[in-house]
């Protein structure tokens, strides 16, 4: 049997606290835990350590928000599409959001996070609709392999468009090449809180609809039998997913594989009930993202490896394991 949920959630909270602490401590200039606590309790702007911790605090907050958003979105996508491979990166939602942002930078010289957010939400919505529509056509409906391929096709096609835009304009290239890889650095508290509100709305919707996710995961017929209004539930969940993914892309760039890995890990710990998976994702997503970000800061000094690269390093093996263990069942 699976471990009791309260215990796992308590462990998740503890892990999150440790991840936050590590994220505040470690970097080019490493500080002690006691200094971190001191800086949080009585901030002194004249101490270099405190200034460092303050900048890391913003980064940590961004990491918590983005990690939770992507993990919860991934869980909802996996349940709703009954697809073990669902992830904002793999299904092309990130690509849609990225393309919209790049087009915005190039065409209207967007540079504010608010502009990024609006563009990313629009792009995420378009990407989701295109991928889902394409995969749903044909006799079999939206099978995992068709969703993944449609996502890959959209990502590759839009990638060409993005490259063409970026190539024409060097200044966009310089701004975008760092953003495009997925990074948590350099966000203001105002940006984080503004985008965070969107994420919170999306997350709350999904937490409240976890029971509906359980029903949808059984298949549409079973869900209808259980009294779920399938169309409305999908529309609501889809909107929440788009909010979460678009906001995450706006804040941190396209980060793939986190939304794939965390729900699977949660499923291993607490079983297949989305009422337990979703809350655990809220904790596990930030833990994984913060750890990935922290390791990326020190793995290749003096430079940083962006968090998007780190999540891909962790995520691809998991992706492959999922494919292999599923055999041909449903794939």
């Amino acid at each position: 049997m699976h471990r009791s949920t309260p215990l796992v959630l308590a462990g998740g909270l503890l892990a999150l606290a440790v991840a936050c602490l590590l994220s505040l401590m470690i970097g080019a200039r490493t500080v002690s835990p006691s200094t971190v606590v001191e800086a949080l309790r009585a901030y002194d702007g004249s101490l270099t350590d405190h200034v460092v911790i303050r900048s890391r605090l913003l980064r940590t907050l961004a990491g918590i928000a983005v990690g939770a958003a992507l993990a919860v979105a991934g869980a909802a996508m996996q349940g709703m599409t009954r697809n073990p491979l669902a992830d904002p990166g793999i299904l092309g939602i990130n690509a849609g959001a990225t393309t919209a942002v790049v087009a915005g930078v190039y065409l209207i010289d967007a540079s504010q996070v608010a502009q990024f957010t609006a563009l990313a939400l629009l792009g995420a919505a378009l990407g989701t609709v295109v991928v889902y529509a394409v995969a749903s056509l044909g006799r079999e409906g939206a099978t995992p392999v068709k969703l993944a391929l449609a996502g890959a096709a959209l990502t590759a096609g839009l990638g060409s468009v993005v490259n063409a835009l970026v190539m024409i304009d060097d200044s966009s290239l310089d701004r975008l090449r760092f953003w495009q890889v997925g990074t948590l650095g350099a966000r203001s508290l105002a940006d984080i809180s503004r985008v965070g509100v969107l994420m919170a709305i999306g997350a709350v919707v999904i937490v409240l609809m976890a029971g509906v996710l359980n029903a949808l995961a059984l298949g549409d017929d079973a869900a209808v039998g259980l009294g779920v209004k399938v169309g409305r539930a999908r529309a609501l969940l889809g909107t929440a997913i788009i909010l979460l993914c678009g906001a995450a892309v706006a804040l941190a760039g396209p980060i793939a594989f986190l939304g794939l890995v965390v729900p699977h890990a949660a499923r291993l710990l607490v079983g297949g009930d989305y009422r337990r998976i979703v809350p655990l994702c809220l904790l596990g997503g930030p833990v994984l993202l913060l750890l990935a970000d922290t390791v990326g800061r020190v793995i290749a000094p003096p430079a940083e490896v962006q968090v998007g690269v780190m999540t891909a390093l962790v995520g691809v093996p998991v992706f492959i394991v999922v494919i292999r263990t599923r055999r041909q069942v449903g794939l």
Partner: protein
Amino acid sequence: MTATAPRPRRSPRSRRTVLVTTTAGLLLLALMIVRVLVGTPMVPLDLALRAIGGEAVPGYSFIVMDHRLPTAVVALLAGAAFGLSGTVFQTLLRNPLASPDVIGVTLGSSAGAVIAMAFFQADGRALFWFALLGGLLTAMLLVAVAGAGGPGASGGADNRFVLVGIGVAAALGALISYLLTRLSLQSAGDALHWMIGSLSSSTWDRAAVLAGALVVLIPVLALLVPRLRILQLGDDTATSLGLSAPRTRVALILVAVTLCALTVAVTGPLAFVAFLAGPIAQRLAGRPSFPLAAAVGAVIVLLADIAGQNLFGGTELPAGVITGALGAPFLMWMLTRTPTSGSGR
């Protein structure tokens, strides 16, 4: 242990293949001529012919002989190489979606080349070795991770291989994005430009490299194709005919990866050409055909290059942008038509 293909009788279908291939050849010739003559400035046919004949035609000799003609030749060869490479993968894996650009082999070559550019300031021949190494490592990784008994051994469409390939491609994409952040802005721009896939820096040297490789690889492929057809009947049949299935697969993958990596090193990854050529050729001929796939690949690259040069006013778009932007919808359209969990073909 030589296995010879059962020689097919001249059926209406094979007559159709010959007809379509001839038409494609004529179309290619026409497109080459268009590529040489059309653009800014337009070159009159008689002047172009005199320039090609070796005469020094002021203002035109350089454009024709040092720019447009080598570009057209590189486009032809690159398209053919991508078309062949893609068709080998698609046939071997029994899945029209399993082309090297979808399953990450092309990206592996790109990553190898970007590493070479980033850390060793390599170009030319060195770039090819890195691209080849990247492509081969990716292919080996795919076989090791996805292949229980080798790709295609399970029979039926190998979706698992494709899915693993998508994951590997995503990881390579992240790696390349990361490498781009480590380069100077100038080099990042260059690398990005190269990664889109462009024919704009084609020279006779590059055309010669491609031509040399094709001269070696095409006969090898011609020897292997009959065995590939036998492999498609299943491993048991192949073994009973005295064919070593694993060895044949390795040889085919080596040839296909080399074709792909070499072309990537010369032109950059022209997205979706390898993916498109085989299925289009099959649709036209009513059956799989390697020569036709090569011709279709070349037609696609030439068309994309001509379109990118001439259709967008003052802006010259590289061929890779055109193939990428048009290939994606085609892949999606194929997804809606192909029974992915069925036999694939």
